[in-house]
């Protein structure tokens, strides 16, 4: 192979494969890419995880391309067209105000993913930080932080989120804050458990002997080792977050009408569900499918990233 062929512009697919399968990695980057490649191969053999991933990709695409995919305006009411069953004009029927259910469903994906992703972005770093600090420093820091975690864990997720939303007032931003406040403790506990095993390992002792500060050890050497299990946990958590968000919406404490959030759609269609099943069946199926996809994908990720807990 000439040097020219190895330049990044005209690297061919087969040589990329060879590079990924090379028996000995030539650089840290190379090794990391090979690891990723191996994990992808393992994930590929897990059909249910692939199904989960596919569904997540479809929902993500629907959310991103919502303006292109939607066939009707999601807020435009047409009382003459209310409660129509699925048809060629309205693929999934219309709701109690004559709005197109299909278009609202597509836009609703945006809100659901927005809540799930934003909550995760808030929760994962907090959980990691608290857990690794408590686990690595030990002593009274550990005792105090874990007591706080215990207090939060003493409430079921939804009850705590409900109490926070009641205090903060309904709305989508407050729902995100409330769900975040309720869902960081399990991650902190997980990160702490991981840290307790990591801190005893030889490489940490080696780093410590080289004079690295505690901060440096925690962020440079403990946190990266905790990331795989936290990623798995966070993926599985997304399913729970989606259910909690939908529950808040259903109770009228999350996203407010006329928002096309799926839980809110279910709640506003509730009175008509006995005669027009699609109003409730469709957003509910969407919640179920999304949550199921994250559960399946999370289980698959666990087998790949975190085989110990499989």
């Amino acid at each position, binding site marked *: 192979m000439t040097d020219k062929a190895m330049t990044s512009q005209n690297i061919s697919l087969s040589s990329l494969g060879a590079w990924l399968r090379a028996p000995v990695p030539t650089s840290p980057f190379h090794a990391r890419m090979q690891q990723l490649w191996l994990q992808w191969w393992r994930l590929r053999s897990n059909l249910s995880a692939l199904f989960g991933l596919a569904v997540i990709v479809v929902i993500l695409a629907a959310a991103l391309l919502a303006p292109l995919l939607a066939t009707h305006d999601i807020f435009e009411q047409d009382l003459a067209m209310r409660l129509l069953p699925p048809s060629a004009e309205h693929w999934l029927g219309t709701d109690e105000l004559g709005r197109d259910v299909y278009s609202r469903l597509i836009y609703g994906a945006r809100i659901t993913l927005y809540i799930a992703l934003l909550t995760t972005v808030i929760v994962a770093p907090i959980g990691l930080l608290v857990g690794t600090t408590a686990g690595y420093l030990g002593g009274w820091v550990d005792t105090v932080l874990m007591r706080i975690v215990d207090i939060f864990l*003493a409430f079921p997720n939804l009850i705590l989120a409900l*109490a926070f939303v009641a205090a903060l007032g309904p709305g989508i931003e407050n729902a995100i804050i409330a769900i975040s406040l309720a869902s960081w403790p399990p991650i902190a506990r997980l990160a702490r458990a991981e840290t307790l095993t990591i801190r005893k390992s030889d490489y940490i002792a080696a780093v410590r002997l080289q004079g690295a500060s505690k901060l440096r050890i925690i962020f440079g050497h403990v946190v990266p080792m905790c990331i795989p299990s936290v990623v798995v946990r966070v993926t599985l958590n997304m399913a729970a977050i989606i259910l909690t968000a939908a529950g808040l919406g259903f109770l009228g404490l999350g996203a407010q009408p006329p928002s096309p959030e799926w839980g809110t759609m279910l709640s506003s269609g509730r009175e008509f569900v006995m005669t027009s099943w699609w109003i409730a069946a469709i957003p509910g199926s969407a919640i179920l499918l999304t949550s199921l996809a994250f559960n399946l994908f999370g289980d698959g990720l666990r087998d790949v990233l975190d085989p110990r807990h499989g």
Partner: protein
Amino acid sequence: MAEITTSVPRDNAGTDLRPNPVFLVARIIGKTLLPVLVTLFGLAALTFFIGRMLPIDPVVAILGDNATQEAYDNMARALGMDKPLWYQFGIYLKGILSLDFGQALTTGKPVIEDIARVFPATIELATLSIIIGTGLGIPAGVLAAMYRNSWIDHVIRFTGLIGYSAPNFWLGLMGLVIFYATLGWIGGPGRIDFIYEFDIKPITGFYLVDTAITGKWDVFRNAFGHIILPASILGFGALAYISRMTRSFMMEQLSQEYIITARVKGLSWARTVWVHAFRNVAVQVVTVVALSYAFLLEGAVLTETVFAWPGFGRYLTNALLVGDMNAVVGCSLLVGIIFVTLNLFCDVLYRVVDPRTR
């Protein structure tokens, strides 16, 4: 077996090998109780904080917007709002200890009375759910572990995943559409048909028990028709959790060597699994069941709203919607206390029954 161990006496085979069980339980409780007390104190602090974060002024909530400045000041003093925050927290703690959560704005009665009134409905629902969830969940989990990777395992795991992923309020709505509106097999929302409402003498507060005691079987059947769907849906969630945990506990046991020994001895596979392996996971399964009972309280909030079930969950929801913070705080605190108590129960049970954790 017993003869062998007693025939070889050892020096230390005295009292310290078999400690007094009463003393043991007391020591375990003492060891776990202190953290629990700290947690309970934290629960109180957290709920106090949530109550005070409320953007609504509690004085205005009681007096209304048109109150004079003088009346406002008097009320604020009566509520202790003019005192420093730590003093208010002290009053709050004292109230909790005497089970006084204040008055509910919606009913005008003390919160604790309201909770006592609505709680039996929830307990009845949760108990039937846990019976359904346990009765089906444990066998399902064991079967899935027994026939690992067979179609039975796949069906059970997939059913469990659906139970994990489905929003239970949606299952409730769809169940009502199918079984009540379309097929007419069951009763609609509520605990009982209106015409039977006054046929029930409240003895225990549980309709199924009350009607069975007094022998009113027609009323019993009506109440059962109302409870079966919400209980099944809540039980489905519990089933998902219980079967999944049971499966993973059993798989761990089935990979042990004593299983092979039992098989070599010529025991059937079914006997090995159900008698030898299951006995070793029984305690773990009991703790899982206790925890899922606590989680049913969470599920009840949404399910009761769908089924107009006059229980704790619907009371909490109504309080939330009108911003009745006394009721919200009282309910959340109560759930927290139940959670902590059940956890403590599991912890103690574990240590008493399983010598390895001592």
